[in-house]
């Protein structure tokens, strides 16, 4: 229980700093883009207004809703792929690596790439997949290709590979944590009851690790959904994502109201995914309790 402490001025000042900062640099800016999203564009600036034209454009002009849809699709595919890749690794580390020290070291090894520049990690794929790149020259030395293939880079495939690569450590972390929390005796009890390892996995381990999977999927989806570096590096003409469209509205296209409306849509999608995941997580936990 918190005791009712008398409020002293210094203490109050220190504690209200984060509140004021949040207000000034998070809430107010969000409100500003929300407001601008109803403005009318008047090249090269915009006029105060209250109209839904920008939002209508997003959902009527295929140029925008197709990008939105494509972005969502890529984000979903990346989240699923990252889960498929990360789960076995996390599972292996938690349940099959018996030495605690080795497990900690391997886990560390998975996390380390997170600390290495995001940009560089995306960039290496450009060097690997490019037509003059390593993959091509490797396949050519093997004699599998006669000449360099441009098929690997500048498309959605390249983006999915790159983004999956970037988010695997992000995905391993929560799954690893969730798996580690599962009491071993629960699995032993399941084995003791004559349940086979595979059924134990589906009946006990998988459901109990769902909170980790949900957390990982949520993060990966949200961050992929708003990514604008990978599309520019390895995405081709059909690899543009919503963030690139937004960026161009604030850059070359100079349509701030539309850019703001798109940002608000992105914000809402992210918020929706976050609240959905926290709801799933909560209902999952109740079931387990």
């Amino acid at each position, binding site marked *: 229980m*918190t005791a009712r402490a008398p409020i002293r001025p210094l203490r109050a000042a220190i*504690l209200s700093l*984060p*509140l004021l900062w949040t207000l000034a*640099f998070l809430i107010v800016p969000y409100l500003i*883009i929300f407001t601008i999203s109803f403005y009318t564009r008047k090249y090269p600036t915009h006029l105060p207004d209250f109209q839904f034209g920008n939002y209508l454009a997003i959902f009527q002009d295929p140029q925008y809703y197709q990008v939105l849809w494509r972005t969502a699709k890529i984000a979903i595919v990346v989240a699923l792929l990252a889960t498929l890749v990360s789960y076995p690794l996390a599972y292996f580390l938690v349940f099959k690596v018996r030495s605690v020290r080795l497990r900690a070291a391997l886990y560390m090894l998975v996390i380390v790439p997170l600390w290495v520049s995001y940009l560089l990690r995306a960039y290496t794929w450009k060097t690997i997949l490019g037509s*003059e790149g390593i993959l091509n020259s490797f396949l050519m030395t093997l004699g599998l290709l006669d000449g360099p293939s441009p098929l690997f880079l500048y498309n959605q495939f390249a983006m999915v590979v790159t983004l999956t690569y970037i988010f695997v450590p992000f995905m391993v972390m929560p799954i690893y944590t969730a798996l580690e929390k599962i009491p071993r005796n629960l699995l032993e009890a399941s084995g003791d009851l004559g349940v086979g390892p595979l059924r134990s996995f589906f009946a006990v381990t998988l459901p109990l690790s769902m909170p980790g999977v949900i957390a990982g999927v949520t*993060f990966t989806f*949200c961050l992929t959904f*708003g990514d604008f570096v990978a599309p520019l590096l390895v995405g081709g003409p059909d690899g543009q994502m919503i963030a690139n469209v937004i960026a161009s509205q604030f850059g070359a296209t100079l349509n701030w109201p539309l850019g703001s409306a798109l940002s608000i849509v992105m914000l809402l999608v992210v918020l929706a995914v976050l609240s959905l995941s926290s709801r799933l997580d909560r209902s999952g936990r109740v079931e387990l309790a």
Partner: protein
Amino acid sequence: MAETTALAEPSVRSLRLRLGERLAEGTLGAVAACVLAFLYLPIATLVIFSFNDNRSLTLPLRGFTWRWYEELFANDQLLQAIWNSCYVALSATALTLLIGLPAAFVLHRVRFPGKAAFRRVILLPLALPGIITGISMLNLFKLLGVNLSLETVIIGHATALIAVVVTQVYARLERLSRNIEEASADLGARPWQTFLLVTLPNIRSAVIGSALLSFTLSFDEIPVTFFLTGRDNTLPMYIWSTMRRGITPEINAVGTLIVLFSTALIVLSVLLLRERR
């Protein structure tokens, strides 16, 4: 005899079962190894090609050279960008701690109306794509007539990274037994003494950890920087702009240095955070 067969029969079955288990385990191990390879091969490529004596990044390797590193250190623009990034990352980290620490305490200790909303908003940048933070702050600065500069980038980074400090410090505060602070007050310590002598030393690992992480993330940040920087380039922005023009081995050299630097930071954090058990 009858007894032995009765015993032998299930043992054949269990042998087969154990074989299956072994096989499954082996497969799992192989998959795990592949994933680890997937994580490290690109980084290895980066490092190897930074020493390869060939301007184009193709196999086979042509031999060892320091050339790209020499070119790198002769590049004033690049050196300026590195310096800018250090300035931004250090300032943003300091600012983030200054705001994030009290924020974590407020969330943990103080009850006030609108707290749940405050928590949501302050943690939002964690899952929110950087572009939204960047754009919304760009709008704010334009509205206020503030010129874009490295300082606006610092404010942007700090805002985006508060969430990192808050989550880590908050989690540590949750685990911190409240009664050692009560014991401190009971023994006559003023609130500031309790904070400095008892609370801070016990959340030290979270503070250092989140500071190092904030530094790394800020050093590497693109989306917020993209919208908030003026004429000055940070290192990732510089790399990015050259990278879009084409692939050069100098970038591999910079990348290798960054990998080295990140590894040093990680080792540092592991050393600093080794818990005294």
